[in-house]
């Protein structure tokens, strides 16, 4: 389809992106070797002594590592499921709003938080979730004792999950709204002629029409199951909620960068990379199997 110079131009177009990918993803991958060394920055990659699988074995023996892995999977999976569910429900409901202006306005308001960084949102959350903050004041009216949202290991993951759902569902819903507008209106007309109620139209026309998109998004997100959201948790957690809120990324950051245990940090990071690679394979397979999704 593309010939000679044409193709060259396209390559040129993707080149900057490829270079960045190479520099920030593939080159660092080579440094995963640190996981098999007793790394000393002064000796560098060449000079540091090799220790085989010691770091990885040590990591698997660590109570922390297992706990951190469990936290990561739990938080990331709950986020995925709830964001998906909320976004689909929201899209279906918004699709029923007749006035285009109202629809647009709601949609904009709802996806706005997606563009705020967690540094800012965490500050806001800390304030409204404080003991004398908005949420506890409201609960107080109903006679509920103040809840220590950011300081209770049992509550903390849910603060993380629900605030992420609030931040992201609006943006995620855009995909479903787009799919919904693509539905042939005659299908609705036919359903009406058959006497379908609004709920039934939603159930038997809208939902099946966007089902492939739901399956696709769901499958593709499997690859993210070890990404529980570093910047969100990093800005909200504290030692008291390590037991339920510490995730792989925050753990690697503390161990590797703050406390200078480069080898252990890299070992945990490498473990994450390997598992993520497997998961992405599964998600691609599932996406092509159930949603007919192909990259190549």
């Amino acid at each position: 389809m593309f010939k000679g110079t044409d193709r060259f131009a396209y390559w040129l177009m993707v080149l900057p992106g490829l270079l960045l990918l190479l520099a920030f993803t593939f080159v660092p991958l080579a440094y995963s070797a640190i996981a098999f060394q007793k790394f000393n920055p002064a000796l560098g990659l060449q000079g540091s002594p090799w220790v085989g699988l010691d770091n990885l074995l040590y990591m698997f023996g660590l109570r922390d590592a297992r706990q951190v892995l469990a936290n990561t999977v739990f938080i990331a999976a709950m986020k995925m499921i709830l964001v998906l569910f909320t976004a689909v429900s929201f899209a279906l409901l918004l699709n029923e709003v007749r006035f285009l202006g109202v629809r647009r306005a709601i949609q904009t308001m709802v996806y706005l938080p997606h563009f705020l960084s967690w540094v800012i949102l965490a500050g806001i959350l800390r304030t409204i979730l404080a003991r004398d903050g908005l949420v506890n004041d409201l609960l107080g009216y109903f006679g509920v004792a103040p809840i220590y949202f950011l300081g209770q290991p049992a509550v903390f993951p849910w603060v993380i999950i629900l605030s992420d759902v609030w931040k992201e569902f609006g943006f995620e819903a855009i995909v479903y709204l787009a799919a919904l507008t693509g539905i042939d209106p005659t299908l609705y007309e036919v359903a009406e002629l058959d006497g379908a109620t609004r709920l039934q139209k939603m159930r038997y026309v809208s939902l099946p029409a966007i089902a492939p998109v739901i399956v696709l998004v769901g499958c593709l997100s499997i690859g993210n199951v070890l990404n529980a959201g570093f910047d969100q948790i990093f800005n909200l957690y504290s030692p008291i909620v390590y037991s339920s809120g510490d995730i792989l990324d925050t753990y690697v950051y503390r161990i590797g960068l703050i406390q200078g245990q480069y080898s252990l940090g890299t070992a945990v990071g490498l473990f994450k990379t390997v598992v993520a690679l497997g998961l992405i394979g599964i998600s691609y397979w599932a996406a092509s199997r159930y949603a007919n999704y192909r990259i190549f």
Partner: protein
Amino acid sequence: MRRLFVLFVTLLAVAACLPAAPQPAAEPAVLSTAATPQAVMAAQAWRQTDAYSPLPETASLVLVKGGQENAGLMPEGESIEENRALRYIEETLNVDIRFGWVVPSDSYSDKLNLSIASGDIPDVMIVDALQLQQLAEAGAIEDLTPYVEQYANADLLANWEQTGGVALAAATIDGKLLGIPNVQPQADAPIIAWVRQDWLDKLGMQGPQTVDDVEAIARAFVEQDPDGNGAADTYGLTGTLNPVGVPSNLHGFDAIFNAYGAFPEIFYRDEAGQIHYGSVQPQTKEALGRLAALYQAGLIDPEFATKDTDKSNEVVVSGRSGLMMGPWWLPWWPLADSVSSDPNADWQPYPLVDQAGERSFAMGGYTYSFVVVKKGYPHPELAVKILNVQNDLSYGLNDAPQFYPNFNEIWTLLFPIPFLIEQPYVVERMGREYQQALEGSLDPTTFNEAMQIEYDQIQQDLAAPRSNPSNWAVRMARLDAALLLAEGYNEVRTDPVAARVFPTDPNWPALQKLEDEVFLQIITGARPLDDFDSFVEEWNRNGGTDLLAKMNS
């Protein structure tokens, strides 16, 4: 933490030369660089000694630096790279100093690690214990033994000696002095209680001596509306997510631990010579039990466990608490802000005593950082000489000019190697001297310039208490708190051998995480106190026993 560190390092820089030391009498407070022309310099005999001898040919020296976030404090037309103090050093030693990079203080350590890993090592740099160890293992730094012997001036040598050899020992690896150690007296200051006297007076109470007193005061502050605004909006004791820690843990509960004879996070040596870890001792369990009871009773800020230092400072500054723990320099930060917002806020220091009625406080080491020289740099002695000159500039010794009236605020920016080799116990000594001057037994005109400025501020505050928060802070820290420390106390310090072992131990981060988590959970009641026993077991099993064995071998 690093910001905090820089802050009190800055405070300590005010420290004085001995009153007897000669002052450059005729020199005005602010000089231009023209005050040190070559002719004058050549006439000064001390310059000919090894400690200051200029290089025969101008050498270049590449340094790196943190502190960028404060660059705005520099005087008009000057910068970190170009200022009068720096130029004085360059001219005195005939060296051309350049900076490879300047970054904010928080990123200094990370950035330095990157530089080291990429082989782009600066000629001279400030490193921490872990980096010193790593550089030493890699053979990447010079042995400074001969250079320190030959070039360090008498002041620096005396200051190291006063640590009982601990400072130099901390920098010696395999018999070689691989780094120049800092000495920071009270860098690891004892944690004492600070209480609002105006609230105490209003409720008819006395300042605290014991943990029981602290509890009674906290209860009264919570229940009896000490600020008189009719609302139950005051907390008892403040706290932060770091319940214990040396050095200088603001809002830390260290004072309460120490009062129970518990010294968490300290590796101390007993009389038999064995090293123990304070966090796993039964006394620590007792103190944790007491703290849990205080928390349960609502006498500690209920949200302390998720507040960092800044957040807890807000509690104090906004007048919602009148009881916090911290070091002697607390009046500068954050208490001066409290006085600014409420001139009635009369904070007073009270050291707590243990069950035997004695003051015993946990202290860190004297030494936290080291100046090292890259292997192969042709003039390793420059590092020592620069530190000589910097020390003179700090205290006006050896005719060093005093360029800046606000030197204490900006010295970390001015100096190419922002590093202190201080006299230990200088805080107590200065406190006593101010006291003597007030009593008339010491002539205040013998004070050096920095001390004279402080002495004026102390007098102004004594004449009109708390009318100026800066004056109040100087008086309260330098005089009242310093004199309390001067009354004496037992020090429990981390052993220098241990201090070198634990930061490089691979199990240490996991052990620390375990401890942080368990302590906070026990205090807040998320776990029962008896979980302390399983914590100790787990600590031992996961590398603690091995770590202590390594230290005791």
